[in-house]
């Protein structure tokens, strides 16, 4: 969706404020919400993609005025209610009104083991890869109302395939419970000029990771400009 999370190319947020390496949290509640979000992974009631959609579909006025851990807090509330694990009035009242659903909860060792193992997103390929390194492509112009990982600034742009990552779970589908529908995933590199016009930094290139269904081949003679990277 064209939500507030899709920030690439926006202006007006001011300078980036660096922070020393040892500063990880700024309040105790940040530690607790990090732990709660991760611990609820044990229940397996939503995917990482659904989690991202819950956050990016917050109203822009809320998203842009909340700190990142506040966004995580609001996102977790939405996920719990949508999954039927917590009632909205329980959240409003701050108290549980009864026993929960039957879901798995991790012990400390379970959690450590789950984090150490991770959850790979590669899947058996649905067929041969459509593109190879060096191929010229154009990203599609897509404005889905659901989840997508194709940023607005990189839609309808010519680029070059730089890496072929294998087949990965498709977030656009997985976020909405419509299955993993794995597709080939590619790194696609764009010139700064292609993305931002003639005033772009001439030394800039930007790459994104793009699923097969985000891309069209660029084959015609008039479309070879992307080779000039």
């Amino acid at each position, binding site marked *: 969706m064209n939500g507030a999370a899709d920030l690439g190319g926006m202006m007006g947020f001011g300078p980036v404020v660096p922070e020393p390496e040892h500063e990880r949290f700024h309040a105790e509640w940040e530690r607790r919400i990090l732990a709660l979000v991760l611990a*609820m992974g044990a229940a397996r009631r939503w995917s990482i993609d659904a989690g991202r959609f819950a956050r990016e579909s917050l109203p822009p006025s809320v998203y842009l005025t909340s700190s990142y851990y506040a966004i995580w807090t609001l996102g977790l509330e939405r996920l719990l209610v949508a999954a039927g694990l917590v009632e909205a009035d329980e959240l409003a009242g701050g108290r549980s009104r009864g026993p929960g659903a039957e879901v798995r909860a991790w012990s400390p060792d379970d959690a450590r083991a789950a984090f150490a193992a991770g959850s790979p997103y590669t899947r058996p390929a649905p067929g041969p890869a459509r593109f190879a390194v060096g191929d010229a492509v154009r990203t599609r112009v897509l404005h889905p109302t659901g989840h997508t990982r194709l940023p607005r600034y990189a839609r309808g742009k010519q680029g070059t395939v730089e890496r072929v990552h294998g087949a990965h779970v498709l977030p656009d589908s997985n976020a909405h419970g419509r299955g993993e529908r794995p597709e080939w995933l590619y790194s696609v590199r764009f010139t700064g000029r292609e993305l931002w016009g003639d005033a772009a930094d001439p030394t800039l290139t930007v790459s994104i990771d793009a699923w097969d269904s985000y891309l069209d081949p660029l084959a015609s003679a008039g479309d070879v400009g992307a080779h000039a990277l």
Partner: protein
Amino acid sequence: MSDHGIPEKVEALESILVEKGYVHPETLDAIVTTYDEDVGPRNGAKVVARSWVDPAYRERLRADATAAIAELGYGGRQGEHMVAVENSPDEHHLIVCTLCSCYPWPVLGLPPTWYKSPAYRSRAVLDPRGVLADFGVTLPETTRITVHDSTAEVRYLVVPMRPEGTAELDEEALAALVTRDGMIGTALL
């Protein structure tokens, strides 16, 4: 950022989820310890230092960063599919996630606040030299800048250039020179 009422929401969430049996308090404590104390950028620094002193390791890191990083014992959540990109005098790499906060946890720990901020996410892909200036970094005008927007589950680690005058240093001393920001691309060493 107001975050008005958020600390109270988090407190309520924790008590509700514990009461319902969805989470165990001791597990929450263990998770905090893992990401507050155990996992952090010193892991990535060891990967970088190894790549500086061991050409065979450097080749493996280029070919399959996930496997090479696992050799040093690091991997798992948010590092399942790693790619290492090497800075050179000609090319400087910068990592961002414009859409959220994707970041290679096993080698860098949790992302700093600025990495998740609208200021960084909006500008890194449009004006990376301006972002670098916020960090006090100026690159030569001829250096190519490659920004990697982490839009999938692939996670990127920048291998900074080894500083001049470090030929005498051993791997441990070299690792101590490697900063978190250097491995994101917002600092030089």
